[in-house]
């Protein structure tokens, strides 16, 4: 190849590259003129006059009173109830561990006013069946004869409200429902046995539909390092909100054999029947009303 011919080819290639790249840059520089642009608004001004809302805002005290009344009303509507409660213990629930179901029991519970209750254990399964019943860390739940579900509303009951401080932490509108999120914590820092938490209140019925409980410090530091999460959920059966689940994750100070350093405890309430009538024969058994305590 001669030098002249080679020079000519480079010149042609350079001209072609210049033709390909140069106009593109130029087009890019001109693009804003053709694409979307924001106009500078200088011809329209408007002002909305302030509207004075004369209606008084509902105070926190009034909300708390409504919740107490709503919960009491909910309780008063239930004459009898039956449900299945499943109790489950799952070990090794810490980060990076493989959870293992250790124990599960299912009980049928009947309750009827005034003060009648019976629970019947239908199934109890252990991963490691105890060799001797007395030495086993047997998990049992007392259903009691109360239907007011104190585990949900303990902080909002008139007799215990003074032990907590409350704060509205959020409000949400869902359709025609207004849901308040109310945080509570023990009034005295020395009340270490009392938890704090957050509840979700549906203001249509003034009932608590969900609760997350927190312990600022472990109630028993010697054995329990902390309760990482404790959730109480409700479900609606007919027009009545009832317990659905209670789930807790407990972290222990010392790893427990079979349970590990973190284990879960869960209660699930299913197959509800409210005010459907409970035959007298259910309570005729000596085991009826054997256990006391609210739930």
């Amino acid at each position, binding site marked *: 190849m001669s030098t002249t011919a080679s020079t000519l080819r480079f010149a042609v290639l350079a001209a072609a590259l210049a033709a390909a790249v140069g106009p593109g840059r130029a087009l890019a520089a001109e693009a804003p003129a053709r694409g979307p642009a924001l106009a500078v608004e200088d011809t329209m001004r408007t002002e909305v006059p302030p509207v004075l809302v004369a209606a008084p805002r509902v105070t926190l005290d009034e909300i708390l009173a409504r919740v107490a009344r709503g919960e009491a009303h909910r309780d008063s509507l239930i004459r009898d109830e039956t449900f299945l409660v499943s109790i489950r213990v799952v070990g090794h629930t810490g980060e990076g561990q493989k959870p293992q179901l250790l124990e599960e029991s299912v009980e049928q519970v009947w309750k009827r006013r005034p003060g009648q209750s019976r629970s019947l254990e239908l199934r109890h399964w252990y991963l490691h069946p105890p060799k001797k019943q007395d030495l086993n860390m047997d998990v049992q739940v007392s259903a009691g004869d109360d239907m007011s579900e104190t585990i949900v509303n303990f902080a909002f009951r008139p007799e215990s409200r003074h032990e907590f401080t409350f704060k509205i932490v959020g409000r949400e509108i869902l359709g025609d429902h207004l849901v308040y999120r109310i945080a509570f914590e023990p009034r*005295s820092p020395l009340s270490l046995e009392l938890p704090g938490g957050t509840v979700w209140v549906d203001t249509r019925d003034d009932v608590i539909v969900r609760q997350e409980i927190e312990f600022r410090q472990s109630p028993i*530091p*010697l054995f329990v390092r902390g309760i990482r999460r404790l959730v109480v959920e409700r479900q609606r059966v007919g027009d009545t909100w009832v317990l659905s689940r209670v789930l807790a994750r407990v972290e222990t100070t010392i790893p427990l054999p079979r349970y590990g350093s973190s284990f879960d405890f869960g209660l699930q309430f299913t197959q509800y029947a409210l005010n459907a009538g409970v035959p007298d024969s259910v309570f005729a058994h000596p*085991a009826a009303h054997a256990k006391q305590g609210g739930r």
Partner: protein
Amino acid sequence: MSARTRFRAAVALGAALTLAHLAALAPRARAAAAPRDTTIEGYVRSMADSTDRFFGLTAQPSDTTGLDSLRGYYLAHPNASRRAGRSLELMPLVTFNRVLGLTPGAEAAVGFAERGGHVSAAAQWAPGPDLWLGDGAYQKRWTDPLETRTWELLLRAGRDAASLDRDDDSPGLSPLRALLTGGDRTMYKRLDGGRVSFERTTPGWSAGLGARDQLESPMATTATWTIGRHALAVTDNTPATPARVHEAGAWGSLRLPWLPLRLQAHAWRGGGGLGGDASYTRLRATLGGGIALGRHLTLAPQADYGRLHGDVLPQEAFYVGGTTLYTVPQGALQGTGRALARAELLLVDPVQRLLGLEKQPLFPIQLGAFGGLASRWGDDPVTGAAELTSRDWPHRTDWLGEAGVSVMYRPGVPDPLTFVKVSFARPIGPDDRAAVIAVTFIRTLNFLQPH
């Protein structure tokens, strides 16, 4: 109009009215059949989904297949139910102090306080004085369904060795101290007899009545050994004055409505019309509580006042020292009058969390600072050193003060507010007390009786 025509007109009118009626009913029927508002349920369910993700296996529904037929079988065959009653409880007991020695025993209990009653019996053999100790008790409780309001009846009879200071109700480390280092400074008395109490408890207040018929008698030191082969800090045991005591008492506790404080008051009357060997009136009032100072500090003030009138027995006197004032040895001062004041400033959160080391520390350490005042006056039934007086309030010179700091660990047992405390206390005032380091197992509000 013919009959047929009238009939047709009537049928037509009837049909029209029926249709109109159905048309009027139709919207109602449609309204009744309208789907229920499930917005809130969907909202709650969406939060439940996040709960499911966190708890995983624990949140999964249980398999309840076949349980319906099992339930039917158990209801038809009541005796086939697997849960058996298991109400008998057995528990070993052991204690150690210098008047009893190492004292093994056992306790048996049966029943439920909320039903027919809780019956318990305990027995222990004390090798030092060659003595059987033990008692029987019956407890019956009536409660509302939530157990927030109760009536309680308690009957107890037997033989026991108790602290000479009848206000000393802290869980204490005395048995451990006595066994390991011989550092137990508690004085003991023997009690033979019975007592009964009836109490009403509500969330805001409680009140009770009680009576006892007990022979109070002295005990002598019988065990001078310790595991650590230490010499005993106190070898002698201040003797109780032998006396059969017939006593009636009343007490009450009230949470103040506008302050986070609780007031307790006790009154006991011995002898007089009740009989017995000693005649006295013993009064005590205590005020205490926890006041939040911001999010991280709590102030725990306490005040206590006690006064004894009538016969002055060592077992009815008021004591100062130890947990009431660290810089005075336990039980070193006593009299017919006592006034105490104490304030403790506590760091609520563990030190490790405040330093950002651990959010949930394995061994949560808390810090506190305290100041205390104590006085006792009147007749000293142990030494006779104090002068007889009818004063109801101490002289200015009767007060002893101290201040110090504590490092604390709260195990959560036997109650959530009991701490293991290592306290450094310095005396305040012109006297010959020395600074001390005290190790105690004590409730924060130790002047108040637990409720």
